[in-house]
């Protein structure tokens, strides 16, 4: 299967033709319309074919981990919003889970349900925008992006009503959530979930079967399952390569064991699979949302036995130890590793950022393809520079 593809796009060996040819080195980024931020790729081109590609990161480095080691645990929460600024809710969830694991806090059911609802809504927002951007990178002049943003806006409205901010939610707290969901807001979410399938159908008809999209995406940027596993790729990218690995199923964290949902798997691991697996994942997320909205019951939204961390965030001192909390963020496995020495600030704080790790296979996927493919492959990885550079 892969051999066939390789033949089609073999790098033309310039030495063989006996002509004195020259490779061209171009810097794609850090200021480039489709590197999704200040990411830079140094690409060596032979004609239009990528011969080597070197990702250069760090233009958006903000010292996140060092800052977190110098502020209290709860003050890190708004900083995690800014990692992957498309998915602040799932970032919050991962950080909250890590500290709860460290401090052994039990979370009430309602809070867990709210967290699941929020992170699945986040997944919808992320996947729908990523697909929009991917198609935009392919040259569809903003129509998919704006359709995606039209729906994203509705979800962001809910986030704003619930947490106070559209993107930088800072909504979760250790032991629960900041505020309860009102019935109004639940109704709003129900309406979004009910309307979303119609939008997804439209979105899919718009370009998923489009011949140009198929030509651009199919058999481009193939990531073999073996390489994906070896490079510890996670998230939709891994599943597009046909590996069944979803932390929601593996860890069964939060209340995910109470829902009926499936994991869509890709066939070849090319750009098209990554695109379509995200499409299917959104449909599965909608299933989860429907069940969660049915099952959610009134109750406390904060841990009833309030630990010190909630009463007085400045004086919250978790016991000495270490914890690693992870969630299935829309981009992959988002993990926080934290070591506590019993003081107010974490002694060591590390983020396992899915975008960053998924980006490591970029060169392997791009070599032998055209410059235009490299852009699309980058788009299909789904990176957010806030998370890559931290």
């Amino acid at each position, binding site marked *: 299967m892969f051999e066939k593809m390789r*033949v089609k796009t*073999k790098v*033309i*060996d310039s030495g*063989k*033709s006996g002509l004195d040819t*020259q490779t*061209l080195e171009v810097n794609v980024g850090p200021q480039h319309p489709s590197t999704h931020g200040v990411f830079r790729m140094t690409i060596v081109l032979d004609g239009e074919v990528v011969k080597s590609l070197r990702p250069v990161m760090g233009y958006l480095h903000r010292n996140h981990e060092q800052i977190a080691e110098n502020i209290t645990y709860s003050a890190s929460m708004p900083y995690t919003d800014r990692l992957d600024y498309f998915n602040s809710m799932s970032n919050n969830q991962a950080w909250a889970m890590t500290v709860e694991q460290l401090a052994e806090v039990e979370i009430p059911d309602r809070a867990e349900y709210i967290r699941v609802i929020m992170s699945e809504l986040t997944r919808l927002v992320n996947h729908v925008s990523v697909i929009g951007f991917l198609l935009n990178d392919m040259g569809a002049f903003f129509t998919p992006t704006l359709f995606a943003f039209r729906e994203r806006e509705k979800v962001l409205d809910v986030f704003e009503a619930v947490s106070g901010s559209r993107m930088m939610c800072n909504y979760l707290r250790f032991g629960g959530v900041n505020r309860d969901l009102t019935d109004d807001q639940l109704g709003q979410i129900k309406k979004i979930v009910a309307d979303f399938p119609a939008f997804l159908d439209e979105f899919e008809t718009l370009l998923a079967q489009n011949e140009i999209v198929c030509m651009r995406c199919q058999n481009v940027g193939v990531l073999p399952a073996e390489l994906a596993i070896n490079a510890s790729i996670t998230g939709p990218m891994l599943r597009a390569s046909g590996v069944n690995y979803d932390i929601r199923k593996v860890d069964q964290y939060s209340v995910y064991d109470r829902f009926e949902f499936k994991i869509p798997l890709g066939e070849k691991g090319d750009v098209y699979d990554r695109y379509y697996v995200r499409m299917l994942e959104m449909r599965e997320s909608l299933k989860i949302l429907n069940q969660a909205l049915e099952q959610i019951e009134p109750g406390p939204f904060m841990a009833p036995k309030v630990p010190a961390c909630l009463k007085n965030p400045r004086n919250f001192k978790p016991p000495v130890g270490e914890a690693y909390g992870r969630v299935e963020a829309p981009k992959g496995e988002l993990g926080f590793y934290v070591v506590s020495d019993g003081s107010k600030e974490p002694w060591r704080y590390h983020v396992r950022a899915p975008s960053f790790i998924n980006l490591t296979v970029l060169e392997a996927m791009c070599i032998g393809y055209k410059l235009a493919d490299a852009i699309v492959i980058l788009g299909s990885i789904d990176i957010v520079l806030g998370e890559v550079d931290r």
Partner: protein
Amino acid sequence: MPQLEFLIKCGVYGLMGLGIIAAVGAVLLPNLFHAGLALAFVLVTIAGIFMSVGAEFLGMVQILLYVGGVMTLIIYTIMLTGRLGAKDVRAQNRQGIFAAIAAGFFVCWIGPLILKTGAWPQRESDSAPPLLSVEDLGMSLMTEYVFPFEVLGVLLFAVLIGAIVIARQDRPS
């Protein structure tokens, strides 16, 4: 209308002058890319002269084939071969003497022909149809000059096959 005739003459002589300047530029400009562009401009002015004497078809074909096709390819080649970093690839010419001799022979051959024609092409009247219609051209290509035409066709065919062979060489078997 002699005044109009005068204006047209001015225009045509101006065109010719520009053409000569551009031709000199095409030979002398140090930068190959500029020289190529100057050559393209020469061809455009020649097309303009063709049109001014009523050979519109020829003028258009001149632009379509020579400017749009041949010159584009030549400039494309220059652009690809010239190192992108170093733009001042000098148009090195070590055969100036031979070129001058060849040009001299050419002038000797074609000069009498030029002198034989009048200062201005004579047309019977302004409203007369062009000397050579497209139909005439087609007819003569298909009757009188059918052999050269076919030979050219075979040549182009060979070129096409050659291009395909060269393009295929790098492909894996």
